[in-house]
């Protein structure tokens, strides 16, 4: 008896849902639209405004970093900052991703440092800085107070948020990019270029073996 009633109830519920689904969707859509209309105009996502914000941020970044760093960011989408503790290590700065520490000589990834610069005032409904402002904030904090920033950041092993394969590819791209740029930044980029040449040689050797 109970089983029969339960089955009937389930069938009834399924039927009611099936009959009212389209109407429910309409009600939900209207409700969302009303919520959106109530939101102040300034808080709505505006792709044009975000694009202009990013353009301003890029100009500011360009005016602060050196030509090589700017070209690196513009062409590769990330920036390398050398460590200042005397040992040979460097950081990769990606917009809105953790800072990745690595050893330029062999490309070994050391750590990810998760750090963000949220603006609690949320002027346009978001605490998120434009991409290039995020990169500039990391660059300023790293070059001004590397140890302070690293101490404040959440440290993780490589691969938690940034795909290690992507980092490896980016390091190879960086090395090739530096090689193509020739003498500019020669001393700084030597290790990365050497590594790219080794990668190229390995790829070449692999191709030769395959042939």
């Amino acid at each position: 008896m109970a089983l029969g009633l339960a089955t009937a109830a389930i069938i009834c519920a399924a039927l009611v849902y099936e009959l009212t689904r389209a109407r429910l969707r309409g009600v939900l859509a209207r409700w969302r639209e009303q919520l959106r209309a109530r939101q102040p105009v300034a808080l709505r996502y505006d792709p044009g405004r975000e694009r202009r914000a990013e353009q301003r941020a890029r100009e500011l970044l360009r005016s602060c970093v050196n030509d090589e760093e700017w070209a690196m960011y513009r062409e590769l989408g990330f920036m390398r900052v050398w460590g200042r503790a005397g040992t040979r290590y460097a950081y990769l700065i990606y917009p809105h991703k953790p800072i990745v520490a690595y050893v330029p000589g062999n490309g070994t990834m050391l750590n990810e440092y998760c750090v963000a610069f949220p603006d609690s005032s949320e002027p346009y409904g978001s605490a998120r800085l434009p991409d290039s402002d995020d990169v500039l904030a990391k660059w300023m904090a790293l070059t001004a107070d590397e140890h302070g920033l690293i101490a404040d950041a959440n440290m993780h092993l490589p691969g938690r948020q940034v795909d290690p394969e992507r980092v490896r590819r980016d390091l190879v791209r960086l090395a090739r990019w530096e090689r193509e740029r020739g003498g500019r930044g020669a001393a700084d980029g030597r290790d990365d270029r050497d590594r790219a040449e080794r990668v190229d040689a390995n790829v070449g050797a692999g191709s030769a073996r395959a042939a």
Partner: protein
Amino acid sequence: MKLLRMKPGHGEIVLAEGDVEIPEQERELIEAFRRELDAGMWAAVPTETVGGRREAELVKSFGDVPRDAERVIFFPRAAGGAPRATR
């Protein structure tokens, strides 16, 4: 000297601009500087060394800002780990 602030959805905005050698303008710069620090922002001065290396210097008071600095950039404090009492 210009005081700039990074702002989500906008890019940087000019908070104040003036000549530090003119007392009235310097006062306005100092007031704007304090307001931003009180709001929890960090302040950085982009610099260039003699060798051409670009870097930044974090400053905690207007007195720390080099007199010849062209701009001070305010940006939100870093979040991600435990805050340090010394900052």
